């Protein structure tokens, strides 16, 4: 009861209301606009929803979703681990930084989607090229953020560890790595979304399964409705992945800092 009162008195309910109202307005506009167009150009929301329920309900969507999820998760994990590992190496050893950074800059300058066709030639139409693209694209934000998080450890903390005669490894595990956690998590979030984009776009280039492949197939058959079904599925997938990230982030932060509240803001980290 008290919570309800507080909710009503706060701005939160107004925000929620505005989100719901604007969403309804957008769907109505979509509906009205679609009625003036051919369903080949823009299908109406009603039929798209029906088709989505049928498609997901019948289980025909599952193989596509499953493949894309695997590509995202594998690419994210591989690229993420490589990014965290190399970012840590670069922050620990000057020589590692000097060797790694030029390569990183070159691989960043190269648009990774441009590699998709050659990866298909090398690895075929299976998951491998998609995982590689997703990994390459997820790699950079983690390298950047890990490096940033580790190297921005306050000088006073490092001096304290030096005064306490801590070695390099102890300083990393008991101080710098923990200081880098928020930065790494914000890198993980970006990497997760980029891995999704990477997997889908790589599927465009050549795939027989996956939500990206589904979009290409529906383009070929002028089945715009199915394409919209894929859009909705991708959006929901992205939201779920982001929610999962948020959940893990909050769990880790609560464990480290007690709460994700005042102290984090005091530490200058936006929550």
């Amino acid at each position, binding site marked *: 009861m008290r919570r309800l009162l507080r909710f009503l008195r706060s701005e939160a309910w107004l925000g929620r209301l505005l989100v719901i109202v604007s969403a309804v307005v957008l769907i109505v506009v979509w509906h009205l606009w679609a009625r003036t167009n051919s369903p080949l150009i823009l299908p109406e929301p009603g039929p798209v929803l029906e088709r989505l329920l049928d498609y997901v309900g019948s289980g025909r969507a599952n193989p596509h979703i499953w493949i894309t999820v695997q590509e995202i998760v594998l690419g994210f994990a591989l690229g993420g681990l490589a990014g965290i590992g190399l970012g840590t190496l670069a922050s620990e050893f000057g020589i590692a930084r000097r060797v790694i950074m030029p390569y990183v800059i070159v691989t960043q300058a190269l648009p990774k989607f441009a590699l998709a066709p050659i990866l298909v030639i090398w690895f075929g139409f299976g998951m491998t090229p998609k995982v590689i693209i997703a990994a390459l694209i997820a790699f950079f934000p983690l390298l950047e953020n890990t490096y940033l998080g580790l190297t921005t450890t*306050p000088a*006073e*903390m490092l*001096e*304290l*560890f*030096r*005064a*306490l*005669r*801590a070695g390099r490894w*102890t300083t990393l595990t*008991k*101080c710098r790595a*923990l200081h880098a*956690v928020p930065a790494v998590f914000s890198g993980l979030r970006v990497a997760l979304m980029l891995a999704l984009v990477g997997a889908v776009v790589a599927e465009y280039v050549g795939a027989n399964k996956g939500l990206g492949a589904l979009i290409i197939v529906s383009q070929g058959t002028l089945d715009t409705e199915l394409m919209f079904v894929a859009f909705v599925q991708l959006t929901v997938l992205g939201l779920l992945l982001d929610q999962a990230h948020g959940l893990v982030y909050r769990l880790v932060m609560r464990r*480290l*800092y*007690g709460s994700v509240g*005042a*102290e984090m803001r*005091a*530490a200058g980290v936006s929550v």
Partner: protein
Amino acid sequence: MNDQTGELSGRGHIEIDGLTKTYASDAGDITALQGIDFDIAPREFVGIVGPSGCGKSTLLRCVGGLIAPSVGEVRIGGDVVTEPDPRIGYVFQQAVLLPWRRVLDNVMLPFEIAGRPTSENRAKALEVLQMVGLSDYLNHRPGELSGGMQQRVSVARALVVEPSILLMDEPFGALDAQTRDSMNVELLRIWNESQTTVVFVTHDIGEALFLSDRVMVMSVRPGRVQDVIDVDLPRPRTFTEVEADERFWTLRQRIREQLN
């Protein structure tokens, strides 16, 4: 070679011998400290005052083994300082607590780094936290504590390893006047109980006189020992007694004139 120093008296004995520290810069070498000679007896409380930029902190860092002197040396208990010494406890200007550790875990940090987080040492941590009056805050995060309480945790962290020397670099400079006064009174009580050598850097003349047996007055760059003042005020000291004492004001005046 320092047999005559002996085990007992030597542990907290600091000898600063011809210490000079220069830094290279674009405009040539900058001399931060020039020819400092100073001897600090075990269990002595020495205050260091001087204008900002006189190298007070640099001197303390040399004693603590955090930076190396360019010329000369520092000896602790007869051994030349080349790296941070386990017999030294350090209290910095900021509390420098690890925000992801609870109060007790912050105080346990020196033991963890040394690979000795034993239950015996845990008992020591609880004891020093009681000494600084934080027994009720063992499981709080640093972010939940006031500035004064945070600095008390950092004092506890320095004391927990039972150092023979405590180096304090303007530890209460960021606190409000009232909190600082009570911290100073507590520090004297703790010093009296633990009997470590204390070197206390401050820019506050009154604070230095209230705490110290001797006060080293430093000149601005290059930092030199300008004067050494014996503070012959009786102990234990209270602010009321000290401020009622003629000698306090005379010494204060003497230092102030030298700093101007």
